[in-house]
């Protein structure tokens, strides 16, 4: 099953490699991983999307907690949460495609953030499935380049991950 883990970790050199090293050494899966410092610059927050049986996820959580630099770990998917991913996608925009791309971007509530005579670069945010849906909805031959950040997540309502 898919799980989305939020990790608060000391913002120190090598901390990321400890996390990724743990996943590869123990044979766990990383579907995506995002990381950036928080409002407290001494700390980073990671969002790791992974999958595995409940036993495996329990071990992943425990092993992450065991890392000396990890401050806190929660499994966001245990309760209601929001996740968002950013995609930048460059598409061919000539002839009738140009209008079509603009329309699709509007439907998906994306934004065109760079324009040339032949291309659009579109910014699209949402859950991963929405970004997948956009890719499916447009003509695959028109896609020149895509880049996706992987999911970032946060708990709904009063649920807070903080030290």
């Amino acid at each position, binding site marked *: 099953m898919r799980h989305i883990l939020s990790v608060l970790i000391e913002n120190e050199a090598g901390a990321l490699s400890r996390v990724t090293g743990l996943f590869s*050494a123990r044979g766990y899966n990383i579907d995506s991983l995002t990381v950036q410092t928080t409002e407290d610059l001494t700390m980073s927050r990671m969002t790791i999307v992974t999958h595995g049986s409940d036993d495996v996820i329990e*071990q992943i959580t425990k*092993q992450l907690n*065991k890392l*000396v630099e990890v401050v806190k770990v929660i499994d966001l998917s245990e309760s209601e949460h929001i996740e968002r991913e950013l995609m930048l996608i460059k598409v061919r925009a000539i002839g009738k495609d140009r209008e079509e791309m603009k329309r699709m971007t509007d439907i998906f509530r994306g934004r065109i953030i760079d324009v040339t005579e032949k291309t659009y670069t579109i910014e699209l945010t949402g859950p991963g499935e929405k970004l997948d849906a956009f890719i499916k909805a447009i003509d695959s031959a028109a896609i020149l380049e895509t880049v996706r950040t992987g999911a970032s997540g946060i708990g709904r309502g009063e649920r807070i991950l903080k030290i």
Partner: protein
Amino acid sequence: MEISGAEIITRCLAEEGVEFVFGYPGGAVLEIYDAIFKQDKFKHVLVRHEQAATHAADAYSRSSNKVGVALLTSGPGATNGITGIATAYMDSIPMVVISGQVGTPAIGLDAFQEVDMVGCSRPVVKHNFLVKDVRDLAVTIKKAFHIATTGRPGPVVIDVPKDVTINKTEFSYPASIAIRSYNPPTKGHPGQIKKAVHLIGEAKRPLIYVGGGAVQGNASQEVTELVKLLNAPCSNTLMGLGIIDGTDPNFLGMLGMHGTFEANLAMQYCDVLIAIGARFDDRVISVPNHFLAQPKKIIHIDVDPSSIAKRVKVDIPIVGDVKHVLTDLIAVLKETGARPNAEGLADWWKQVEAWRKPDCLHYEKSAEIIKPQFVLEKLCKVTQGNAIVTSDVGQHQMWTAQYYKFRRPKQWINSGGLGTMGFGLPAAIGAQLANPDAQVACITGDGSIQMNIQELSTAKQYHIPVKIILLNNRYLGMVRQWQELFYGNRYSETYLEALPNFEKLAEAYGHVGMRIERPEDVEPALREAFTTHKDRCVLLNFITDGTENVFPMVQNGKGLNQMDLPAHMRNLQQTPFENNRDYGNLC
């Protein structure tokens, strides 16, 4: 006054009460060695290979309540130390390793003797540090000792670039340290302890299974008290030996792949298992499904939450320091008076004694050829079970675990998790330095001893009077045993054809060498080594039976009640002997 990074290192080590640093100099650590030359707070022990530095530091920790320290130079010095770091990591041994690094401006430029030590060691350390600023050095060393020794202990590496050892700053060593992201558990949850007491009160066939965590957690007294309070049988893992006196009637011997008949069957057929500082690893329970096919309730006490439910799901996990948890558990047991069902327990003991009776460690004695088991029985007799015993890895290690009756914890020093050949001799050196008045024996084989034999030179330099008990069977015995049992006697590369004359080799290093070929000479030779040559390092080259195998044995993929047994027990059934007892689903 500002002092250099190198001086800060020596001052910090002195502040930590370090007595010995095991190391080997080189370019990146020249400043540190200069600072060592100028101080007299601790001694440096010059090994002959960096692997030995880490093993010696490790064994220094294992045989005492102090922390072993190793000092390695950058590049090959550091990578040579990795095997010893991994060995300590697998057995959760506290150790601090300082490695030199090329100067910070040269890092990443493939400089001479540069290796990414933080990267290389990351999978085999509890934590590691690269110190880029001399002002962070003292606090990093403080953190390293704190992390290495608390919670589930382990090795910590501090990588120090050369310019950091040269640069100067004001020195102050923090008296204590708090790390917000690191808060190891201490006390166990009272609710869980109550549940455990309730379960113990319902037990008919309890077993107490104790591993190395109880040794590292200094919980010998508490374990023994619990065993006596419940009058439960107790078995130890390879790493747990000595936690309860090996001659205690409640002690069933080691369990696992080469565990005793009675311990393995008790493990399989118990109804309430109390696991203390043990991790249900493959060499202990073999296949989890087979182990759990016989219904049992499990209480698991461990300081590391990730050890719980890793291979086996348990009913009552208790996360905490084993000493604290056991103290609380014993208090609640006394308060409530909860004890295992008396009738059930009496029946259980009858069964256990019936399993014990055929004596699974019995072997055919010989008047012609030295049996390896015989040497270990005699060693135990001559040293009165009191020696600190280190071992290498293989058949001799298992026989030592089976035949030497350890009396106390921290007396048995071996590489259990990683199974590192070459561990024994440097470990004996470390253990002897930590315990200068103890008799120290290193049990080894003709394969293992050659993996770090250069340390005979270290033993000479520092007058280390260890006794090397070499069980020389001309084979890599454990591999040969597997080839005999599972590979149709095809002894692929396990016969050592060009062995040196070990006793002459020992003499060449300046030690006493002895060759023993007759069974009747075994005991006198041991006595001579431990009395006449008390103050010398002695290598006793015992020419042993090369065909001997270690039994009982649980083959890979088999259950604990499917042991290969020694000849005199081959036809014995491995289920409870009386079927009218309530053992649930027999498998």
